[in-house]
């Protein structure tokens, strides 16, 4: 087999696959953040905790109720989405006329409370979640070994991201959403129920985070801190892509996962910081983000 700059292809493709997996989570999570920020003007710091909730809900469904991975993939986002709807109705709707900072503080506080509750109840050592039987094993592609579950994660997140993009950019509901994002007062004055749209959007964004959490459960252990570790990187991804851009969030999420993977191959020392270095450069050169629209 060929070698690239002295790197064996197995190592290169292995890291690229890991990068693509991470990128899948970055993409779904930053997509949810972008959708929520676009319409609610709230930087949802609870997003990481809601991702973690998705994984825990899947774990609880399996271990307490006996509901397996496939139904959980739908049920966990719906359950988490309902908690999101409650959070929006009870807390967030009081903040829309205030500065971003208040929403950020509230959602950050909620994240700490939710993570604290789960840590208190489940401990912080992590719980195992089995890969579903259908997706065990893997494929030998010749140049690398592809575990089936990891391939599934990439495909599933791509499908969910593109479906979200399609709904927002190509459907009537999406047109309502874009209109309400741009000018909520006028959209409401056309007879469109903007408050309901806002509530559902937050619920949907939370559902996306929980979906990512269920996907992550069999890969990473189900752990109360799993979201807190990830969300910092995801915020950097959102800043790089540009707040409020749907396709920007998707492309940047997958792209930065790959960049991170490549960095692990060629200069592992920088792999934990490369995204933040890119963020700093983007902020200097294009403060609105790669895909951001300046108002």
């Amino acid at each position: 087999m060929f070698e690239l700059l002295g790197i064996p292809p197995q190592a290169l493709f292995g890291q690229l696959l890991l990068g693509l997996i991470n990128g899948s989570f970055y993409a779904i999570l930053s997509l949810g953040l972008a959708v929520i920020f676009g319409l609610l003007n709230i930087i949802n710091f609870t997003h990481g905790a809601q991702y973690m909730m998705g994984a825990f809900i899947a774990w609880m469904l399996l271990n307490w109720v006996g509901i397996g991975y496939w139904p959980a993939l739908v049920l966990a986002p719906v359950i988490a989405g309902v908690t999101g709807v409650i959070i929006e109705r009870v807390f967030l709707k009081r903040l829309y006329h205030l500065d971003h900072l208040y929403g950020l503080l509230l959602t950050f506080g909620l994240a700490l409370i939710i993570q604290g509750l789960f840590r208190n109840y489940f401990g912080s050592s992590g719980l195992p979640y089995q890969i579903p039987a259908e997706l065990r094993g893997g494929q030998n592609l010749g140049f690398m070994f592809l575990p089936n579950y990891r391939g599934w994660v990439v495909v599933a997140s791509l499908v969910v991201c593109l479906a979200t993009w399609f709904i927002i950019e190509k459907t009537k509901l999406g047109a309502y959403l874009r209109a309400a994002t741009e000018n909520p007062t006028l959209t409401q004055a056309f007879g469109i129920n903007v408050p309901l749209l806002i509530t559902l959007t937050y619920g949907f964004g939370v559902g996306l985070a929980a979906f990512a959490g269920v996907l992550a459960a069999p890969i990473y252990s189900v752990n109360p801190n799993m979201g807190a570790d990830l969300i910092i990187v995801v915020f950097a991804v959102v800043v790089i892509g540009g707040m409020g851009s749907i396709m920007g969030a998707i492309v940047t999420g997958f792209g930065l996962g790959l960049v991170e993977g490549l960095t692990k191959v060629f200069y592992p020392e920088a792999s934990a910081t490369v995204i933040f270095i890119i963020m700093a450069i983007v902020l200097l050169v294009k403060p609105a983000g790669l895909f951001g629209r300046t108002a």
Partner: protein
Amino acid sequence: MAEAVLDKAPAATAAKAMLSVRDLHAWYGESHVLHGISLDVAEGEVITLLGRNGAGKTTTLKSIMGIIGKRRGQVTYQGQETVSLSSRAIARLGIGYVPEERGIFSSLSVEENLMLPPRVREGGLSVDQIYELFPNIKERLTSQGTKLSGGEQQMLAIARILRTGANFLLLDEPTEGLAPVIIEQIGRTIARLKREGFTIILVEQNFRFAQSVADRHYLVEQGRVVDMIPNAELDQNIDKLHAHLGV
């Protein structure tokens, strides 16, 4: 003074008024902008609000539409009190709003802009009728909404309201910043809507344009209606008009 103005409107008009506004007050934050607007609009009538910049004409439309945070007084539409309703509920009664800045969405295509407002009543124009009325729109359906010229954006802002079945229109300075030939086209459109039975409140700075389309004119100054002039008497009152409009 407001009472004197109302005396001019025959009681019969007030009785069958489609929209009746009494002692309407409105605030932007702490700033008290409308100080008791009163006016009546009969079904099928086109009336204008004339006045200087900042007189409260736009605020009056926004208050009728329910998009001013704090308002007080009476706004009765077809017998129903609307001052406590949300703008969403007011739109659902059949009142269509074309804002001053036109409100074309840049994140929506021309077609999406046109189809955005939901139907609120039966009897709205069909898409084909709209294309016939505004042929320019049909040619630009896939363009970004704000890529249209100012005149085309104004047509689109009116067109999307006509689709919904709303038969009471609030038009805020539809001729502002447009070329004379476009203003003529908008004038013809308003005249046609009037013939078809639409009821319209028009905010205008251009009183020649207002004269060409309206039945009556309300002069607004410092958040109050200071006079009402039937269109036929506009020329006799030209001095009064100059004094109020400062033209």
